[in-house]
């Protein structure tokens, strides 16, 4: 039992989890680790990855394959030192309020896993092992080519030689590698073992909701290529008057954008391949998607509705400042957490968007037509923007954004409709009206 009980059962807020990656090199461990970290951070769960390779590189920047030979005592000692340094940093981070630490290393022997387990248990941290096991030679080589050869370990080296060296490095690991619970004596560990990219999966001893959440998320990931398109609704009548919220129709310029959207999308997709369109339930997004081809399947989601401004709904920023001066200032100080009276905060929006993100992760090509605050949150998920900045991002009207997730981050392209629209952006601590965005505040800084 976790030491973190108060006599009334384990409290979920107190849970601290160390996600320990397990597996040979080139099995997509870092991909999984970075996805999980991004998802958790977005949900405001304090998460951080500790990559042992990065620690080792400080000490041995470009080691040859036999550095990883277990009979090489010097290599072994230095790799051990790197793992210890990473763990020490991670424990320090947990003590300062970290919730989910991701320990990204091969952790390929029972002894190493037991060591991590013991260290964490002593600190009251739960351990979730996540193993990626794959014997598909083609996939491994693809991974080596795409990811490993761009790694700092092989910077400036001949790719052929580097690939061979990396294969040899893996061989050294294979000699001592034990898949988790392979011998049945790691039965008490909490683990997720993903075999052959999800064809077979073992889930063992899930101990709390948060662990199940992480496992569920990881099971929904796929690696098929796809993109996500994001657009705000066209300029609305409320935008023209500088009012927030409401359920207004599009302005004439907004209608122009709606009519141009099909062409923008075709240009960006590069063909007639139909997309699935998700809109909110508000008139301005539905009208914006109105002219898209009929072959596009359209779905309305309440969860994509604009942030609810509560009592301030339908007011201008000036009116809000006049009527609720304290609120106006409080929102500027912590926009992410500020909840409008009777309305929502950005934090609330992220919670309601969570099922949308899960659907997005498992879906392929999707076009989302939604609102400023919602787009900021979805964009922050893909582009890993932190909470202090994401609510201040400028997402201009009449612009289509294409996001393409890659192994180590997301690529972004923008398509301008070249139809003028008012700005709906307001800088932090500035006057109470919409203004032209200053360059640093925009997303493309």
């Amino acid at each position, binding site marked *: 039992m976790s030491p973190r009980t108060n006599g009334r059962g384990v409290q979920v807020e107190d849970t601290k989890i160390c996600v320990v990656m397990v597996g040979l090199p080139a099995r997509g461990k870092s991909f999984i680790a970075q996805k999980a970290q991004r998802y958790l951070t977005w949900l405001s769960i304090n998460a951080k990855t500790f990559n042992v390779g990065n620690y080792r590189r400080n000490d041995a920047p470009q080691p040859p394959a036999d550095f990883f030979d277990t009979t090489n005592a010097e290599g072994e000692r230095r790799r051990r030192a790197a793992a210890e340094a990473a763990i020490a940093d991670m424990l320090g981070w947990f003590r300062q309020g970290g919730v989910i630490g991701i320990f990204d290393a091969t952790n390929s022997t029972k002894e190493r896993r037991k060591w991590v387990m013991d260290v964490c248990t002593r600190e009251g941290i739960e351990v979730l092992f996540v193993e990626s096991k794959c014997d598909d030679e083609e996939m491994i080589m693809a991974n080596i080519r795409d990811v490993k050869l761009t790694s700092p370990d092989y910077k400036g080296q001949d790719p052929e030689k580097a690939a061979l060296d990396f294969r040899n490095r893996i061989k050294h690991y294979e000699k001592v590698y034990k898949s988790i619970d392979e011998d049945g004596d790691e039965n008490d560990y909490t683990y997720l073992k993903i075999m052959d990219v999800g064809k077979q*999966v*073992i889930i*063992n001893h899930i101990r709390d909701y948060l662990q199940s959440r992480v496992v569920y998320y990881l099971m929904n990931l796929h690696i098929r290529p796809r993109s996500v398109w994001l657009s705000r609704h066209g300029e609305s009548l409320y935008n023209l008057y500088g009012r927030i919220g409401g359920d207004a129709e599009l302005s004439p310029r907004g209608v122009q954008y709606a009519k141009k959207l099909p062409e923008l999308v075709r240009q960006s997709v590069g063909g007639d391949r139909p997309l699935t369109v998700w809109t909110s339930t508000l008139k301005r997004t539905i009208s914006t998607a109105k002219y898209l081809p009929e072959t596009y399947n359209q779905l309305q989601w309440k969860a994509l509705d604009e942030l609810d401004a*509560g009592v301030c709904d339908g007011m201008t920023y000036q009116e809000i400042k006049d009527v609720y001066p304290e609120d106006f200032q409080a929102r500027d100080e912590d926009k992410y957490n500020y909840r409008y009276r009777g309305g929502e905060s950005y934090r609330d929006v992220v*919670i309601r968007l969570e099922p949308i993100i899960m659907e997005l992760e498992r879906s392929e090509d999707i076009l989302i037509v939604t609102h400023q605050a919602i787009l900021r949150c979805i964009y922050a998920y893909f582009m890993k923007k932190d909470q202090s900045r994401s609510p201040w991002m400028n997402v201009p009207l009449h612009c289509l954004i294409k996001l393409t997730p890659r192994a180590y981050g997301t690529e972004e392209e923008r398509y301008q409709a070249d139809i003028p629209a008012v700005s709906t952006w307001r800088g932090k601590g500035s006057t109470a009206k919409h203004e032209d965005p200053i360059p640093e505040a925009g997303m493309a800084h």
Partner: protein
Amino acid sequence: MIHLGLSCHILGSVAENPGTNDPSTADLAANAPRYRRKSSTFIDGIHDVPEDADRAPAQLYSTMSGRLFHSGRIAIVMVGLPARGKTHISVSMARYLQWLGVKTRIFHLGDYRRATVGQGGDVPEDYFYPNASPASVVLRQKILKKCREDIYAWLNHENGQVAIYDAVNPTASGRRSLAKEFAKHDVQTLFLESYVDDEKLLRENARNVKISSPDFAEMDPDEAAKLYLRRIETKIPTFETMNEKELNYIKMINAGEKFFYNNISFNYLSHRIVFYLTNTHIKTRATYFVRAGPATEDESYKADAPLSGEGVKYSQLMAETLIKHREQERDSLIANGGQKVPLRPLSVWCSTRARTLQTADAFKDRGFKVRQRSQMSQINPGVCERLSERAIRRLYPDEVEKHELDPYHHRYPRAESYHDLAVRLEPIILELEREQNDLVIIAHESVLRVLYAYLMHCSTMDIPKLKFPRNEIIEIIPAAYQNEAKRIHIPGLDPRTVPSSPEDIRIPVPDSRSDTPGPLPGGGLPPAAETFDKPPEKVVNTAAEAVMDKITDVD
């Protein structure tokens, strides 16, 4: 209410005697002891045949075919020996899938067997043997055929999406041909095996579910459990655990301790099921539903006002009543020969709204830990805030018309519908499933309605009308076949604090009895006046009676 429950039971026993005229299989299924066409919201409706199956609590979206997640038709085939909790898993899974908006129905093969051999009858001794006599094989096939025909009828003609087929399915060859047969009907198959090799767990299961039968009377419970398990072994001598590489299957080992997952062509739905199952457990614990106390500005949603003086008094009385109730329950358990176990720990959840938080203070001050959940804040009334029913009818006549047609999904301008609320509450549902402690949920009536509807499976037409008067705490106890609801009366409250919350959306419901304090969740019940004059201290659900014939069952 009790009356309704009993009539259901009577209906059930009638159906078990099909009589001499062989009824059509569809009738059989519909009248099978587990299915009711209609029932009270007071009884767990998980086995009801829904009148309007298109309306599910948390349907995120539906496709043209009415099937969710772009998945086709799916048969979830249970695998496992008796006493492995298959029925429990089937029922919980159906509850969750229906909540998600997936049209799901459970087909317990045992129901068909009982309907065929008749009440009190028994299957031949060699019924499950691989080398059974021709007569037994014919009987077995007849029963299987009826059950499968109903599955196809439901998937093909009633637009069902997931059929849960609850049977032993002991052999690999049988499972292979089953998958083939379903494939021929254009139905994908996902096998879900409950595999238990933990002796302790097996015995506990057998003891809890099966051995209240007269056969085991006056036996030592442990001995009885052992005898029961031995009987299964002789009755079903061949059982092969799943290892068929070409089939989609989930193997749930030792009641969720471990999952093994062989995934050939499934993705989302099976992930979702595993996610759900990793959060469920079969330990007994109680969930209590409690209203927040009245606030100072009760009519305003946006004000988020603190508790009034009455509200503070209410919170104290409520907490005292609940704590006393739990102690009494434990004392009476011990008095009846139960073990002297300590009270299960109690957790308290409330929303981030001021009045629920302040109501929870009554527990916090007594040393219980309180968790705030922002997802649990009340339904947003939108434009209806502060409006009387008459004003709403005058201002939004079109909306009122739409609302009356579908009170669950319709949303007033700028408001949330109950459906929106349900979607937002999903993480709460899973944490609720996972919770091992007893749990008090302090929330607005709208939130209680949706959570109650999940646990007791109410129809969407009833959900907006469920009533939770302040003078009652609702206690829900989960059980394998269906959940049980009890109510605990809070004595000594000012009658003005009792009625439905005035800050609620003034939804014009056709039968506007909303100002009278109804008994329990009200929809579909006889007029409130009959029962609410003197609410009994406690009403026990008759769910246990409905499963009496399950006792000697080996499915």
